[in-house]
């Protein structure tokens, strides 16, 4: 059943732009996962996921930013309160000037979670109403969750 769902989602997203938007679609621990590049991840696609009668992914549970040394990824975990199904959306973005379309206009739950990713990983979210640091000081240098971040133990008083 979940495989069918995966095919349906892939088709619907590809139909939006009439091209191969989804670079990879697979099952990840029994749940559908689609992977697409950041420039293809638009508000239209997210809106379709939210509003399409068969999908209705209205509950954005979790947003994760991951730094894979060669590129960065933002993973969205969707849940549908109507149809009770799940979806991973993986958005890949280059490591230099990482940028992913913000879902804040559609899902308010993205507000804080995207701010946190911006704060800790330095991924830009164009379209976010208030993209500021949330956990660290406003004048903090660098983004700690990046793999090349060097912890300045002296400055933090740990050494």
């Amino acid at each position: 059943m979940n495989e069918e769902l995966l095919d349906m989602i892939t088709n619907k997203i590809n139909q939006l732009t009439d091209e191969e938007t989804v670079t990879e679609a697979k099952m990840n621990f029994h749940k559908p996962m689609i992977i697409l590049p950041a420039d293809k991840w638009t508000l239209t696609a997210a809106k379709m996921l939210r509003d399409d009668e068969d999908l209705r992914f209205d509950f954005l549970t979790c947003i994760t930013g991951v730094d894979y040394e060669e590129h960065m990824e933002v993973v969205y975990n969707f849940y549908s309160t109507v149809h009770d199904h799940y979806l991973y959306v993986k958005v890949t973005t280059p490591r230099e000037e990482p940028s992913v379309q913000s879902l804040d206009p559609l899902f308010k739950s993205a507000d804080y979670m995207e701010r946190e990713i911006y704060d800790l990983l330095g991924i830009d979210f164009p379209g976010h109403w208030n993209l500021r640091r949330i956990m660290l000081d406003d004048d903090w240098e660098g983004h700690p969750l990046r793999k090349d971040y060097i912890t300045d133990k002296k400055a933090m008083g740990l050494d």
Partner: protein
Amino acid sequence: MSDLKTETMTLNMGPQHPSTHGVFRLQLEVDGETIVRATPVMGYLHRGSEKLAEGFLYSQFIPYTDRLDYMNAMTNNYVYCAAIEELFDWEIPERAEYLRVITMELNRVASHLVWWGTYLLDIGAMSPFLYAFRDRETILDRLNEISGARMTFNYHRIGGVKWDAPEGWIEQVLETVKELRENIQEFHTLVTGNEIFQSRTIGVGKLTKEQVINWGLSGPIARASGVDIDVRKTEPYSVYDQFDFNVPTREEGDVYARYLVRIDEMFESLKIVEQACNNIPDGEIIHKKGKKLMMLKPPEGEVYTRAEASKGEIGVYAVSNGKNKPHRIKLRRPSFVNVAILQDLLEGDSIQNLVSIFGSLDVVLGEVDG
């Protein structure tokens, strides 16, 4: 007279304020006692758990999850362990899962008790706090007996639990459940029917179903607004599918509804504990590979695992690169997501309601700041 200008005042509530339950700051713009704008400011307790995780062995991170939502540490333990177990694709011994469920549900009751006490303290009733702590104390005693700690349990392990239940513990838990049931019933007589209490809660801080879903709220807050999501039912983890329990929901979406949902949830949790204690099987308490703490190397992959904590849906997004340290651990902290609604919810309300509304969200700052 119409051009008489009134000025708004900026009021910094916190980071040190008795009702923010920790180091949380609300920047309020108030016109008299009416809130024009509320901006939550956080991060005062940020310890960088996610960053720390990348430097530890898999087993070493468990104690750090305790310190997220320190009121409900068992579920935090569990969800982290469960995520790693899912990466391994392990079968967990039944007895271990039962012990996990018992400890998690007892801890949920303890967490709700603390909420009940502190919430009423927020709206000015002091006695319930002490009643709640009396009952919480018995739960903590039980958890102490099995885990050796009162708050930061560090009890669950990847693949099972650390200790088996001591002799006679199960019977004691059953006793405690009986006692708690009577005492929680007493709460209704103490508070629920009180006129002042009702006038302060009914119709205050209303959240609609749409708001809840759009803001990603979960836990009792969502269920009080008629959004019936409880991970224990929608995606049963551990052995929750073996128990008979209800998920209390209400439609009103106000503070009073959240209050009732939490009280009802305590009874449901006690029900689960009772069933689990009566049906607990004998056997191993940990997967045999889980005992080798230093050798844990999950295969490459990534997974999002969720569980129902007392505050809402807690999730762990674990990315493994096949080495002995995690590549990335993302913690979806329910309080952090839930607290965002404050900006929307407080606008136009009064300072007097603020405390009531903020208290009803039941946030723990350890979890908000991660």
